[in-house]
C-alpha cells in the first residue's frame, strides 16, 4: 500500500489525480477500523493531515466554511453558536479521542447512512466544496448522497470544505443509541428553523439507504407554524410533523434496532425537536 503525504492542497489534488484510487485519510477513525476488520486495503492512502489549508474554518457572508481537516472537537468548541445542530451532532460522535481526530469531511467521504454530521447538513442546506486539478465545484448536500456509502465525488476529487449557512434560527439534533455514549446511531433527526424565510429544514439518519430530508414534513411545518403570531406550537402539528418525518424514512431491521422502532422513534424525536426549536424561537422553555 502506497502512502502519499502532500503538504499543500495543490499537491494533494495532483496526487489524487495521479492516483484516483487512493483513499483520502484525515482522522482515520473510520478507515482504520475498516482495515482492522479485514476490509481489503486501498492501493494507496492519501494522508491530508499535513495540508495546512484544510485545518481551519472561516466566515464569509453568513456562511461558515469548514475546512476538510476541522475536527468535531473544534466544531463543538468553536461553532456551537453558528452551527448549533452540527455542534450537537458532533458531541454525539464517538468518544473524546475520536472527536479529536475525526472530521465532517471524512464523514461525507464515507457517506454512511449513519453518519452523525449528515442530518444537520441536510437540515441547514449545506454545500460541499469538491476540488480536483480540473477546478472546484459546489455540490448541494441534497445531491451529495447517492447510495449506501456512495457519494457524488468524482474519482479525482477531494472534499476541500463544507459550507454551512450561519443559523438563522433555532436548530436541534437528536440521536438514538442503545447506550448513552459512543454508539452508532439507531436513528437521528435534525431540525432547523429559518424564521426569515419561514422555512423548516430536516435531516434523518440511519433510517434509509442514505441520509435524507423529510420534505413533506418540512412543507407541513413551514405552512402551518404560527410564524406571524409567534404563538404556541399546536400539539397536533408537532405530532403530524413527527409522523411525516417518520414516513419519509425507509428503515430496516438490523442488529441495532428494528425498522418499526426506528419509525416510531423518528416520529417522537422529530416532534420533540420541532417543539424545542419553536419554544426557543418564541422564548419559551426548551
Amino acid at each position, binding site marked *: 500500500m502506497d502512502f502519499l503525504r502532500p503538504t499543500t492542497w495543490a499537491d494533494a489534488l495532483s496526487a489524487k489525480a495521479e492516483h484516483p484510487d487512493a483513499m483520502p485519510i484525515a482522522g482515520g477513525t473510520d478507515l482504520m477500523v475498516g482495515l482492522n476488520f479485514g476490509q481489503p486495503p486501498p492501493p494507496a492512502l492519501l494522508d491530508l493531515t499535513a495540508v495546512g489549508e484544510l485545518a481551519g474554518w472561516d466566515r464569509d457572508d453568513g456562511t461558515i466554511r469548514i475546512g476538510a481537516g476541522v475536527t468535531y472537537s473544534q466544531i463543538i468548541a468553536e461553532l456551537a453558536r453558528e452551527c448549533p445542530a452540527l455542534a450537537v451532532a458532533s458531541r454525539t460522535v464517538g468518544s473524546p479521542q475520536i472527536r479529536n481526530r475525526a472530521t465532517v469531511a471524512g464523514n461525507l467521504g464515507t457517506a454512511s447512512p449513519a453518519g452523525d454530521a449528515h442530518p444537520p447538513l441536510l437540515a441547514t442546506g449545506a454545500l460541499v466544496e469538491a476540488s480536483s486539478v480540473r477546478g472546484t465545484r459546489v455540490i448541494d448536500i441534497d445531491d451529495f448522497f447517492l447510495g449506501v456509502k456512495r457519494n457524488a465525488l468524482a474519482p479525482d476529487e477531494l472534499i476541500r470544505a463544507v459550507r454551512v449557512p450561519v443559523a438563522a434560527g433555532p436548530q436541534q439534533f437528536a440521536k438514538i443509541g442503545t*447506550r*448513552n455514549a459512543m*454508539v452508532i446511531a439507531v436513528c437521528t433527526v435534525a431540525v432547523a428553523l429559518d424564521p426569515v424565510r419561514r422555512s423548516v429544514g430536516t435531516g434523518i439518519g440511519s433510517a434509509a439507504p442514505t441520509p435524507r430530508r423529510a420534505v413533506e414534513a418540512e412543507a407541513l411545518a413551514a405552512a402551518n407554524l404560527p410564524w406571524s403570531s409567534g404563538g404556541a406550537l399546536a400539539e397536533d402539528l408537532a405530532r403530524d410533523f413527527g409522523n411525516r418525518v417518520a414516513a419519509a424514512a425507509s428503515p430496516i431491521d438490523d442488529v441495532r434496532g428494528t425498522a418499526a422502532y426506528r419509525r*416510531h422513534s423518528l416520529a417522537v424525536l422529530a416532534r420533540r425537536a420541532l417543539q424545542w426549536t419553536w419554544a426557543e424561537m418564541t422564548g419559551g422553555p426548551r
Partner: protein
Amino acid sequence: MVSRSTHDHKPLIYEVRGGVGESPVRPDGTLKVKGEFAYASDLWLDDALFGVTLRSPHPRARITGIDISGALEIPGVYAVLTHADVPGTKHYGLDHSDQPVLAIDEVRYEGEPVAVLAATDPHTARRAVGRIVVSYEELEPLTDARQAVFDSSVPPIHPDGNVVRNQPIRHGDPDTATAEVVVTAEYEVGMQDQAFLGPESGLAVPAADGGVDLYIATQWLHVDRSQIAACLGLPEEKVRLTLAGVGGAFGAREDLSMQVHACLLALHTGRPVRMMYGREESFFGHVHRHPAWMRYEHGATRDGKLVYVKATIVLDGGAYASTTKAVVGNAASLGAGPYEVPHVSIDAYGARTNNPPCGAMRGFGAVQACFGYESQMDALAEKLGLDPVEFRARNAVSQGSYLPTGQVIDSPAPLAEMLRKAAATPMPAARSTMELGELPGGYGNTTHGEGVRRGVGFGVGIKNICFSEGFDDYSTATVRLELVAGEPVATVHTAAAEVGQGLVTLQGQIVRTELGVEAVTIRPADTSVGSAGSTSASRQSYMSGGAVKAACEAVRAQVATLVGRAEPDIQLTGGKVVSATTGVVADLADVLADGAVEETAVFRHRPTVPLDPFTGQGDSHVQLALCVHRAIVDVDVELGLVKVVELAAVQDVGRIMNRESLEGQIHGGTAQGLGLALMEEIQVTDGRIRNPSFTDYLIPTILDMPPMRLEILEYADPHAPYGLRGAGEPPTLSSTPAIVAAVRAATGLPLRRIPIRPEHITQQ
C-alpha cells in the same frame, strides 16, 4: 460501614505497612495506567513466526476436503497444520474432552478452528490462510436449546449427544404442594460476552529437550498444561507455561483458545510462534455466557411466605461441553435463590447445539437463575400487595437455613439485614438539572425531560465460592525468606493467575502481615510450582491467599525451630523474632544469616460432594456469598431509553482484605450486571454471530454506569482464611434483576427477557 467480626483472629501485629486490611499501591497499577504494562499481545521475539487460525464459516457442515497447497506456495509460509498433525489426543476440554484441537471431518459452530498456519509476519499469514481451500457440505444447524434437550427425534450433533447434563433438585414435597398465590412466567437471558480488553495472545517457544515453553494469558496455567501436553503427546514436564500479562478474563480464558495451536506450530517449525487474535476473531475464539430459557412457578401463602418453587432451566452450551456441567450444577442448586422454600422442584439442563460454545463467565449459571427467581419475587410481591424488600426479607435465608440441596448454610448469611440496609440507603436527590448527561439518551439529546419516569428496584443474588461438587480444589504457594543486602526479603511463588483483580497485591499483603517483612517480591506465575487452581469462582483470595498464609505459617514455624521455640509462641514483626511471652528473641537477619528459609504449602478448602443425580441433594458448596442491589433508573418511556441514576450495593465479604480492590470488584461486577440488563448481547441468528465487534456488542461506558453507594459487611466465615468471603462474582448477579425491576417499576411492563432493548419498552 459496619464491622462486626464473629471470628477470632490470631492477634496480628500491624507494624509493617501494606499488610492485610490496607490498600497498598498495586505493583502493576502505575504501569497499566501509563500504558506501559506488558500484556500477552506485547510478547515479541525477533525470530518469531506469526500464527493464524482458519475458522469455519458455517455453524454446521461436513468437511469434504482441505487443500493447503495454495497456502504453502506463498513465500514466508512455514507450516499449515490440520487435525492430522495433532500428535497426541485430538480433543480437549475442561471437564470432558469433546472439542477437537482442529476440526475433524465436521464443524459444529461458526468460527471453529479448522487449520492453523505460521508465516513470517501477520500480513503474510493472513493472506496465506485465505488460500487454504476447505470444501464443506453444509448441514442444518441445531440452534434451539430446548429442542436439543426435549425433542428426542433430533439427531445428535455430537457423538456424546445433545444433553450435557440434566440435574434435578427435589426438596420437600413439590409434587403435592399447593399455594394460595401462584405466579408463573417464562424468562430469557441473551448470550453475554466477557468482553475483556486484551485479546487472546501467546508465544510458544520450542525447547532443546523437545518440549515447549508457552507464555500465555490464561486463568489456570496447570489445567492448560495438562490439556496441551495430552494433545501434543508430551509428558507434562516438557510443557512449561508462564503467565503473560492478562488483560481481563471473567471466565473467557478458562477454556483453551490458541494454546495448543501455537505449541503445535512452534514444535512443527522449530521456531517461536506468536499468536494474537483480533477483536472480531476474539468473539469467535472464546466461550460466552450460556443463554438461558427458564420457566418458573412460585407459590406463596397470602401472608407472604414461600411455599414452593418449580422451575425448568435450559442453558445453551453451544457446540462443546466446556464447563456446562458445572454451570448447570450452579443454576440447579442455587435456582431457588437465597430464600427458605419448603418445597422445591428444579430441573436444569445443559444443551449442546450448533450455537457458539458457552462456558465460564463471572456468575457462572447463578446469574441466569438469579434473573428468573428475582423477577418472580417481584411478581409475587406485587400480587400479594407486599413491599418487595419486605417480602424478600420474610423469606430470606440466614445462618442455619437449608438450601434446596439439603445443605445447611453454616456461616453468616445476613440477608434480611442486608435488604433492610439497601432499602434504608438514602435516595439520591430528584433530578434538578436538564444536563443531558443525566438524562436517558445522554448527549444524544433525545429528551429534555419528556417521557421520563423514575423507577426503583431491588435484586438479591447468592453465589457459591470456590469449586463445588466434590472437586479436589487446592492451591500451592512457596514462600522464601532470605537476606538480600543484609535485609530480610520474602519471595512468593505461586501459579495463580493475576487477571487484573489484584491478587499479586493481596499476596504481598498477606506475607507482610504474617512475616513482618515489608519487602516482598512476587515471582511470575508459572508451572514450575504446583497448581494454584483457577482464577475463577471468586476463589483466589480464599485459595491462593490461604496457601500463601499457610506457607508463611510454615516459614514462621521453621524460624521458630531455628531459635529453639515453638511456632504458636513466635511472631515475626519489624525484622524481629518476637515471643508472645518473653519478647524479642532474635533479629530475623541473624536467623537468616545461615541461609534462606523456604516452605511450600498446599491449601485445600473443606471437601464437598457431588449433587445426587436424581434428587440433587448434597453438601455441594464450600462457601456462599450474598449481595443486594438497589437500582434507581430514569426511563424515557416514549423512546425506551434508560439512564441508570444510581446503584447501591450491600455485600457481606467476611473480611475486607483490601478495600480499594474490593470496591473495584463490586463496581466492576455491578457494571457487568448493568450491561446484561440493558445492552450486552451476542446476537446469534441461525448459529451465526451478527455483532462480533465493540461497535455493535455494547458494554457500558462511564456515561452509562452511575455512581454507587456501597455498604460492605464483615461477618467472618469461620471456615475461611481470615474469615474472608469471595467477593468478585456476587455483585454481577444482583445488579441485573435490580435494574430490570426498576425499569419495570418505571414502565409497568413485564420485561421477561434481558438485555432489555428500547423496542421492548416501546413495544415495536
